[in-house]
Every structure is written in C-alpha cells, then in structure tokens.
C-alpha cells in the first residue's frame, strides 16, 4: 500500500519558482495498478521521483506500508529503497552489463550470495519473457526488451511496490503491449502494488485499476477506472469511452424516438444482455444511435446513445438504471421545445 499525503515540491530555476506538486494526496491499495496520467509538465515525473526517494519533497509524507520514507536518511534510506522497485523514465540500463548483469544489480546491493543471485535472475528474466537474452548487452536489445529488463531489475529485490515512469513512451503499440503485460504479471503473480506514470491513456485502458489525473501539480481526479467512466463530466470517462455525438443529443433530443439517452454499461452481463432484455421486457423498440464498445482491462464497457420508441420507454430506462446502467437523459428544457 502506497500512501502519498499532502505532498508538495517546488523548484527554483533562474530565480523563478515552479510548483511541480501542490498538495498531492494519493492512495494505492495493495495489489492494485494505479495509473497517474497528465500532460507533459503536469508533475508526473516529480511525483514518481519523490516516491522513488530521488527527490526530497518540500512537505508531505510518502508511506509504504505505513512508514514515512520521505523522512529517512543514510542507511535506513538505502534499506527503504529496496521496498520500492523503480523503472525510471528513459533508458536506464548499464550498457557495459548484460541483461542478466543488469537484473543482478539490486541483488548485489542487497549482498545476496552469488548462487542465489543467479537463480533469482533466471526467475526474473523468465517472468519478463527474456530468458534467451540473459547474456545479451542492452545495445543489442529492442526498446521494449530493454524496458522489460528494467522492470525485471526493479523487481529483483522483491519490493512491495513497483514504480514505472513512462515505461512505454518510446515504444510502438505492439511493443507497448509486451511491457504492459509484464507490469500486469508483476501484480498478478508477485502481488506487487504498481504505480505507473504515463501520458498514454492506452496504459490506463490496459492495466490500471485506479487512476489519478494530475494537472499543474494537483490531482484533479482520482478513483477506480470503472467508477470514473460512468461519472458524468469525468475526463477519464470521456477519454476512455467511445465518442457519442453530444451535439446531436442536444439538437434533436427526441428525434423520431420517444426517448433518447446516453447509457454506460460496465461488465459482461450488462454489456451483453441489458439492452435487448429491456427492449423485450417492456415491449419497446430500441435503436443504437451512436457510441460503441471498448475494454478496460478485462472488463467490457460500452457507451451508447440509444433511442427508445414505445409507450413504456420511460419504464424501460428506469429498469436499466435499477440494474446499474448509468443513464444520462437529454436536457429537459430542450426536450420540452422538441415536444
């Protein structure tokens, strides 16, 4: 469990003060993957560097399993670092060491005996799918392979937390996938709590349970991805879900239908059956006017604009709401004009 409490950090450069983090609080429960997203300069790397204990915050606490790490110094700080595996932003491998040699580095710092070190390195390279690259030097690995070696290195000393800063920023989509798979395995197979900093929403879509949006050093949105997508006005929701034509919803709220609405459906059951069942049960004609289906992690999520025709349209909508569909109606005033 990572808890960030009221973290603030500012830099002074050329006599101007830049507030990189302004009272940031964040909580990542054990065994979850949390994405921190935001545009360039939002303070993501500063947050990652503070949690990596590379940067000392001006104020606030960083707790991993309860202990405030930001307050430590010297050998206690070095010991604390082993609880947090870090994949820094950019290329961070030693070019004069093989993949296996890089993964072994934290084990050497922790003074693990050579024999144990070798078997642990083999395990880790297996975990990231690079067993056959053990004796290859980083210059001969692809960007995605290098990033996976960096993840293996970060996991070597069995940390409880894995922190990755833009682990996929320099990669193409298919390579990105291999790196994300590895982060996901770290969580599912090792039970590590993962914090991944990224500007790429595909990362959140693929592996994040929770997400925090950082904007100019402040958290403007934070919660479970599946909760946020159904909240009206959520940036995460509007970015991750398929587009529906908002303007169209306002322009002709009824159209040739008795009722139109926007629905967000989360999960296999809802996505697969809710709309046809509502249509059957209430004898209404239901047509899909826009939107579509997507996946967040393993969960299918749909956002549709639907039109309902028939006497019991309103009852059908109410029934869907009772079954956890998130329904948004066209604005009433416009509705009145159209009627």
């Amino acid at each position, binding site marked *: 469990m990572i808890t960030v409490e009221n973290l603030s950090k500012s830099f002074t450069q050329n006599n101007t003060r830049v507030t990189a983090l302004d009272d940031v609080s964040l909580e990542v429960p054990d065994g979850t993957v949390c994405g921190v997203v935001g545009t360039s300069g939002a303070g993501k790397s500063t947050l990652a560097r503070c949690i990596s204990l590379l940067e000392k915050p001006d104020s606030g606490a960083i707790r991993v399993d309860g202990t405030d790490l930001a307050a430590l110094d010297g050998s206690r700080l070095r010991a604390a670092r082993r609880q947090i595996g870090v994949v*820094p932003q*950019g290329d961070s491998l030693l070019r004069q*060491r093989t993949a296996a040699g890089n993964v072994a580095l934290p084990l050497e*710092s922790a003074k693990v005996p050579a024999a144990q070190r070798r078997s642990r390195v083999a395990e880790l390279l297996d975990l990231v799918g690079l067993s056959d690259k053990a*004796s*290859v030097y980083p210059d001969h690995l692809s960007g995605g392979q290098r990033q996976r070696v960096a993840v293996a290195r970060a996991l070597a000393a069995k940390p409880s937390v894995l922190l990755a800063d833009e682990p996929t920023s320099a990669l193409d989509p298919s390579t990105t996938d291999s790196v994300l798979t590895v982060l996901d395995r770290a969580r599912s197979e090792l039970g590590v709590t993962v914090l991944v900093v990224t500007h790429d929403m595909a990362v959140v879509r693929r592996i994040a349970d929770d997400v925090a949006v950082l904007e100019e050093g402040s958290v403007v949105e934070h919660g479970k991805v599946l909760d946020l997508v159904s909240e009206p006005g959520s940036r995460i929701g509007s970015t991750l879900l398929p587009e529906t034509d908002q303007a169209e919803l306002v322009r002709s709220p009824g159209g040739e239908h008795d009722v139109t609405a926007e629905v967000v459906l989360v999960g296999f059951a809802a996505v697969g059956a809710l709309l046809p069942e509502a249509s059957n049960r209430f004898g209404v004609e239901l047509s899909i006017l826009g939107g579509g289906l997507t996946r967040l992690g393993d969960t299918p999520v749909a956002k549709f604009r639907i039109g309902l025709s028939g006497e019991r349209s309103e009852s059908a909508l109410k029934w869907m709401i009772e079954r956890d569909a998130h329904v948004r109606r066209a604005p009433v005033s416009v509705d009145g004009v159209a009627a």
Partner: protein
Amino acid sequence: MTEVTPWSEVFELARPATVETIYMVLVSTLIGVLGGLPLGVWLHLTSPAGLSPMPVLHRIISAVVDVVRSVPFVVLLVVVASLSRLLVGSAIGSTATIVPLAIAAIPFFARLAANALREVDSTAVEAAVTTGAGKPRIVWTVLLSEARSALVSAVGVTMLALIGYAAMAGAIGGGGLGSMAIQNGYYAYDDRVLYTAVVLLGVLAWGMQLLTDWVTKLVDRRRSLANV
C-alpha cells in the same frame, strides 16, 4: 660539420634512451592515474549534478586542477627542478624528470577522468541509486564500469602528452630520447642522431596510441555480441 656517426653508435645511444623514455612515461602515467583517478572521481561526485555536491570545495579544487593543468610544462619543469633535487637528490636524469611529469599528469588525467564520468548516463546512475546501492558501489559498478573505455582512452591521451613532455624535459637534461635528440643530436650537429631520436619518439607515440585503441575496444562490452 662533424663526421657522420656510425649506425652502431647511434644504436648504442638509442637503446638506453628509448628504455628511459618508456620508463619515464610509464611510471609517470601510473602515478598520474593513481592520483588522478580518485581526484577525477571526487571532482565528479562533488559537482553540482553529482551524488555528493559540495559547491564551494568543488570550485576551489577544480580551479587548482585547472591552473596546474594549464601551466606550460617547461615552466613546471624549471619550478619543480629544485623540488626534484630535494626528493631524488638530483634535478637531472630520467628518475628526477618523473617528478614534474607526475605533477603534470595528475591534474591532466583527473580532468579527463571527470569528463569521462560526466558522460555516464545519469538515468542509469539514478536507477542504481534506487536499488539501494551505496556510493562506493555506484562509483565502482556504475561510474567507472560504464566509463571504462573513455577512461582507457584518457590514459592513452595522458601517455601521449607525457611522451611529449618527457622529450621536452630532455632539453634540460631530463634523459631519454629527448636528451638524445637535443644534447647528442641538435647541439652536436649530428643529424643522424637527431632524426633517429625523432623517428623513435614518433614510433613510440604511435605504438602507444595503437595499444590504447586496442585496449579501449577490448574493455568496451557495449557492442559485443552475446556468446550464445
């Protein structure tokens, strides 16, 4: 114009002179590296971007290094002559020449080493910091290890500079090929001796360059292919 010296006599002069030059260069390079490497590491660690910034002390030592480095060697030679007399009992000869050579070599190599370490990717250094590695380990396994080929080529550059300096020392009786060229060749109007010494100096420099290039490549693992 004196009679032309027979080749056998030129050879008699050249052999000990070459050995002396190699001796002076190797010993002073060794001292230069032994003294300059820790100094270079210190300069790097205490720099503003280093792992243990010490702004004031860094600036002072850095200035001293650069001042000593930019004193023309001829001046250093004369200034140090008295010191040499004190330390090795004589201000002339190859062993005495090693003193000013080493004094020149230490800051020279220190600066080259600090520059080589600065080229090590800071992200890789930070990654090592996050593994909980202490500073000695980071210096050894990250900084020196990653900069190894740049450091070897810095040794080569130092050696080449010292060949030049050692020859210069020959002008004031420093021994080696420099003395042979100037004392036995130039002042004795003996072109054969002079040019033989000059060619030997060139060959020596070239040989050392080849050697360091070879070692530089040898220690650099970055481009080496996996032995699968």
